[in-house]
């Protein structure tokens, strides 16, 4: 009997194991490299860039995007999209803000106010999962692409935000909420001030105290939980399996539809959380909160290396994607480039990122 000799093939596979590992971390190395180059360019062109105040502001500004991008990574790994996140951010912020302003009479303090704030936040946190559930049911039962379904929920969410806010900003959030969002209760010591230390010769001058906005810790928590769920739980494995090959997942006894619905609810939850964070940070709700956020978030996730076709991606790399997008915007601001050019720059970066991904895929399949 003849048979295709496979020993050579498997030996070749053995040789390429190291190469494969390198190739796998290659995109990470590359992303960090791009980030480093960006940082250098920015610092060179504007020495204010690496100042503690600018870094602190920058972290605060990107928090909403960070939180939503975590959920978007999960849903994109499962092979779906959610373009409604921007409007869910807006609607959640509006719901929370409306409840707080309406229920907290001026002058109330203490316990009662805290309870009302808590209820308002919880109510707002249900908005996203509810939108996700509806979209998920339509996507899985009627077999309609999630891009289209969430395009519908996007418009509904935007419109409901206008209904709740009556098209007007809701100002003057309770002081407690503002304190939560705008406070910087923790200063992070960073031993980076080499020139100062060299001048004075005292090691204590080496440290720069970086004030961190409280909301940044929320984002950090989201990523720790998200990483754990994706990498360390059965649910995470199922998400990857469903996104990579739905049939295989089904035949392994995985309820693929349910997983996709959960994923859409998760991204909805992160969008709601993002809305509340945005409200706390700004101390007000604008009727167009979160407008256009969806595409920035998807871009960040893609730049972070998550596959557009599902099944592949790492949630921590999404952080790099978000930073790259946020840095670009910050750079344009600092360089006093007209705001009209910002979309153009972001678009260029997105195209470069997906082209790079396509190029890599072609190289790796050619093997």
């Amino acid at each position, binding site marked *: 009997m003849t048979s*295709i000799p496979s020993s050579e093939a498997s030996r070749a596979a053995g040789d390429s194991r190291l190469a494969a590992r390198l190739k796998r971390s290659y995109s990470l190395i590359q992303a960090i490299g791009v980030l480093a180059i960006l940082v250098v360019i920015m610092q060179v062109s504007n020495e204010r860039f690496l100042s503690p105040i600018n870094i602190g502001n920058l972290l605060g500004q990107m928090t909403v995007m960070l939180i939503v991008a975590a959920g978007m990574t999960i849903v994109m790994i499962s092979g779906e999209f959610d373009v409604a996140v921007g409007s869910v951010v807006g609607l959640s912020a509006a719901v929370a803000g409306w409840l707080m302003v309406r229920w907290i009479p001026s002058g109330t303090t203490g316990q009662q106010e805290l309870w009302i704030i808590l209820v308002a936040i919880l109510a707002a946190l249900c908005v996203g999962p509810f939108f996700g559930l509806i979209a998920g049911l339509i996507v899985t039962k009627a077999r309609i692409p999630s891009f289209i379904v969430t395009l519908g929920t996007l418009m509904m969410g935007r419109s409901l935000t206008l209904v709740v806010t009556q098209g007007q900003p809701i100002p003057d959030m309770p002081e407690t909420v503002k304190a939560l969002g705008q406070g910087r209760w923790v200063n992070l010591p960073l031993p980076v001030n080499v020139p100062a230390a060299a001048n004075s010769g005292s090691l204590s001058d080496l440290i720069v105290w970086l004030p961190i906005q409280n909301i940044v810790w929320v984002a950090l928590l989201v990523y720790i939980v998200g990483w754990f769920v994706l990498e360390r739980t*059965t649910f995470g494995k199922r998400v*990857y*399996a469903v996104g*990579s090959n739905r049939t295989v997942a089904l*035949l*392994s006894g*995985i*309820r693929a539809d349910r997983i996709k619905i959960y994923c859409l609810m998760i991204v909805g939850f992160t969008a709601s959380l993002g809305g509340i964070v945005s409200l706390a940070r700004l101390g007000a709700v604008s009727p167009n909160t979160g407008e256009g956020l969806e595409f920035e978030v998807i871009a960040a996730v893609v730049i972070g290396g998550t596959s557009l076709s599902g099944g592949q991606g790492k949630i921590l790399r999404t952080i790099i994607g978000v930073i790259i997008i946020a840095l670009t915007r910050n750079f344009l601001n600092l360089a006093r480039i007209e705001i009209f050019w910002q979309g153009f720059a972001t678009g260029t970066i997105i195209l470069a990122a997906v082209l790079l991904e396509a190029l890599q895929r072609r190289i790796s399949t050619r093997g």
Partner: protein
Amino acid sequence: MTNIDRTASASPEPAAPALLQCRGLVKSFAAVRALRGVDFAIHAGRVRGLVGENGAGKSTLTKIIAGVYQPDAGTVEVEGRPVRFGGADQALAQRIVTVHQDINLVQTMTVAENLLLNNEPTRGFGIIRRRDMREQVTRLLQQYEIDVRPDDVVSSLPNDLKKMVQIIKAVNLNPRILLLDEPTSSLTEAEVRVALRLIRRLASEGVGLVLISHYLNEIFEVSDDLTVMRDGEVVADGPVGETSLPQVVSAMIGRHVETVRRASRVAPAGEGPPLLEVDDLSVPGRLQGISFALRKGEVVGVTGLAGSGLSDLSRALFGATGRHAGGRVLVEGKPVPPGDPAQSLKAGVALLTNDRLREGILPDFTLTENICLPILSRFGGIGGALDRSAMRSTTERNIARLHVRAPGPDALARQLSGGNQQKVLFAKWLETNPKVFVMDEPTIGIDVGSKDEIRGIIDEIAGTGVGILLVTTELDELVALCDRVLIMFRGAIVGELAGDAVVRERILHAAVSGEIRAAAA
């Protein structure tokens, strides 16, 4: 060949009641009746071989047992209790496990993740015990002597190792019933030994097994019982010891209808180079060293088992396998640039793929649009406007010539039956004036009447001097149409039958064994 110990199941007849019993199963897909009242039993501790030609209904039967399909009529009983599975997960919950024919692994995940997919050891709340998972996987891989590492990504493995991982994954689910659909077709000889030993061991542990395989020698080696299916019915059933390979082959083929062979119209050799020359065509892991020639007006059949590389060959000839292919393809002595379907088309090669719905017909386009798609440039007029009346008349000519039953050239392709859609595809490729026409399963999934018509069309095309490579697993088709038949086995051409040797028994025997039997047999 070492024999596998079958003494574990001592009794020749199953004494105990069946572990699983199907009665009167009927299943149709659109107009095709895949199962017409099938009774089937699986017994604990026994291996049941399930054989039959392609389309006999074997896979449909196992998919019903595995809960993937639901029967239109008939019952399935597990240990005497009737069950009705709504999906694969419900059958899995009853520990009915299937190794499907195609490789069912998540390619982007590692071996470890695949082996324990949806079966991971956890601490509750779905938190995975990573060390346990690693240990389990390492133990499994050592136990079954598979040369892969837990962290290898599945897509980086060669096909045979993927298949072994898939089999081990199924075994690790601790099945009560294990259905194996062509488990060995992509394995090397040594791995086949491992797999067959494993099958016997599971049987001795009391698992009820079903083994679907075209490799009859393997069936005879490990099975206790044998079921032969043909055209959606069980035609033979009983202990393996009471039958023989020739008996099984003739049961698979069934009716001894004499197939009328067409008259050969091969152009005489010796006038210049052959129409098509294939020289050492190889695709790593799929095809090795394929060489043959095709002359004007000749119909050469290519056949073999599922997984022997038939579709890989037809695609490689058309340059549709990317740049991986090695070797040369020459048309009328001129080499065809490799890896580019457009160049192949220009050189006069046409390919009819075996997947009409996904790779052939555009269901929402009209017949005219379907047929004229590859030759649109011929109808370009002033300012790029298409000469619509010329397109229509082209279509009308083809409708008449190939007897397409359709309302007219503006009908949508989806309104047509499968057989008539296939004729439209024939028209589409014929309009490109091919010199070499590669057809991959040209009569797959169409009714008997249309099959005969399509075969008539193929004969007619050959009559016009086109060289035809007929890639098919239908024995009747090979016997009726082919001047010669090339036999493929595990990615290589192992032999050729010509002239009077093109008979069903000899083709089937060569395809299942990989050996050409002596002419006297």
